[in-house]
């Protein structure tokens, strides 16, 4: 199911294309944007279905609650902006107008993590998963590549209720075949090994796969699994993985507090305690700079994943 990353693709373009695809088969799909349609590629949907596209202007709070209004009339709105604005500028609107009402609104944000890089910390988004996760009724998705992003869009259309979809930008290594994972709600196992497990998502998946290859060269065989759905987390697969390994490392492009690692730890601590480490962005604001340099400063590199895995294994 996973192919090796020989090519990259734009997740934003994949999103725009997926919206057009679901728009064709489901006339209830409508799309909103907040003056970022060129960046989020909802522009593709706007071209295909001008009547079903609403550019609300630079007004994310209004967009979110308008989307709720559309959903009360049976539509499936995708309210789209940058992750930082979708989830945080409009946070309370998401909570009350979307989560509390349990309406069929899809909140979508691009440039999750540090990948808006040079724009600096106002635009980077390292707290969205932590902000969305504790909202009752909310499903939280964070795909790693273009095909899995498309699969998330299709999944979201079929699953009534609030969804937050965290997108990235472009140039993500393609790690799934064209159709993407069959069921994004399940944890996707990319490598199997009994020496340890790396749970990962988003842009970190390809780094974890590289790390696994390097560890395999040292005769350390680890499981690598993609946690696309952070909430509700796939407990069954998670506990199966945990049952076969002595320790677990989580890696994500999010604050070490409150993201996927926290979600994994909440399950393991209560149902299957075992040694664990959480790798992510340290709890400080990052800076302007190239994405690769920001990841390096945050300790999110293949080398650091290998290092952490080896240390964790040695301690267990």
């Amino acid at each position, binding site marked *: 199911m996973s192919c090796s990353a020989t090519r990259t693709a734009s997740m934003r373009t994949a999103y725009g294309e997926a919206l057009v695809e679901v728009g064709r088969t489901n006339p209830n799909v409508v799309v909103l944007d907040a003056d970022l349609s060129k960046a989020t590629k909802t522009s593709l949907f706007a071209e295909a279905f001008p009547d079903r596209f609403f550019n609300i202007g630079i007004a994310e709070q209004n967009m979110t609650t308008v989307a709720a209004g559309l959903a009360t009339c049976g539509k499936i709105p995708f309210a789209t902006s940058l992750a930082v604005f979708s989830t945080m500028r409009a946070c309370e609107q998401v909570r009350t107008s979307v989560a509390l009402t349990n309406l069929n609104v899809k909140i979508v944000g691009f440039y999750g993590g540090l990948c808006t890089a*040079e724009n600096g910390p106002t635009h980077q988004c390292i707290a969205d998963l932590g902000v969305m996760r504790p909202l009752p009724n909310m499903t939280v998705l964070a795909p790693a590549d273009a095909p899995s992003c498309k699969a998330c869009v299709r999944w979201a259309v079929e699953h009534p209720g609030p969804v937050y979809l965290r997108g990235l930008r472009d140039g993500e290594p393609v790690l799934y075949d064209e159709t993407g994972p069959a069921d994004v709600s399940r944890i996707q196992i990319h490598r199997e090994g009994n020496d340890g497990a790396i749970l990962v998502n988003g842009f970190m998946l390809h780094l974890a796969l590289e790390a696994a290859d390097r560890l395999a060269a040292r005769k350390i065989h680890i499981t690598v699994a993609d946690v696309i759905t952070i909430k509700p987390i796939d407990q069954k697969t998670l506990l199966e993985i945990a049952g076969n390994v002595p320790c677990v490392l989580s890696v994500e492009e999010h604050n070490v507090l409150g993201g996927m690692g926290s979600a994994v730890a909440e399950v393991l601590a209560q149902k299957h305690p075992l040694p664990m480490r959480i790798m992510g962005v340290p709890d400080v604001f990052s800076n302007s700079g190239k994405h690769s340099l920001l990841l390096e400063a945050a300790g999110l590199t293949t080398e650091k994943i290998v290092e952490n895995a080896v240390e964790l294994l040695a301690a267990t």
Partner: protein
Amino acid sequence: MARGQAHDVDSLREIARQLRIDSLRMIHLAGGGHPGGSLSAADLVTALYFHEMNLRSEEPDWPDRDRFVLSKGHGCPVLYAALARLGYFDPQHLDTLRKFGTILQGHPDMNKTPGLDATTGSLGQGLSVGLGMALIGRLDRRAYRVFVMLGCGELDEGQVWEAAMCAAKYRVANLTAVIDYNQLQLDGTNDEIMPLEPLEDKWRSFNWNALRIDGHDMPAILDALRAAREHEQGPTVIIAKTIKGKGVSFMEDQLDWHGVAPNAEQLEAALVELGP
């Protein structure tokens, strides 16, 4: 630069030209940034920093300094260029815009850049910050004034209007909003994305003193700033009609120049137009 030792109109125009050149150089070197909205704001920023505002660059935290909030934070190259020229930091820093370790972040960060009074980049928040500063200027009986520059697309944000209502409630005459009214935002024109007119009427109905000027006409800008200073009944908004990308023919009024850097060739062509 204290108000009074101000430059004449010709030297202000020359400074604005230099700020445009600096902005484009910086954005080119950074390989990213927002040229259109930096160029449209250049004359307004020049008039404020080199004529109207009361500042001490050697003492960036001087409690009585006039404040400036660039609410449309993405236009920061032109502001950084102005601060460097005034001596807040070594102009060599301009070459480090957006680069890892820089004091000049992609959007203004008050904790990183000497001379910045506010952190902005998430649109719609600057007028509220400015209002807070203005309220305390009055409470503490300080004579400083507060200037907030807004983008026109930025006026889509509801918070701007919350701040506008509140500023009128408190009649803060020491607060002046300046709108860089280039009529373009990110996805299209204001009319396509969110129509704003009648804009003066909107502000007037919010009990603001509203002035409309040509934001590239230096004497008109200076006159409007004086009128704002002399208006004592409450806040003033200067609606300054500008041209996005002003000064470089192939950037003027072009949506595509909102958020991309000029390459070496384009920079050269732009510099030829702007002059030596």
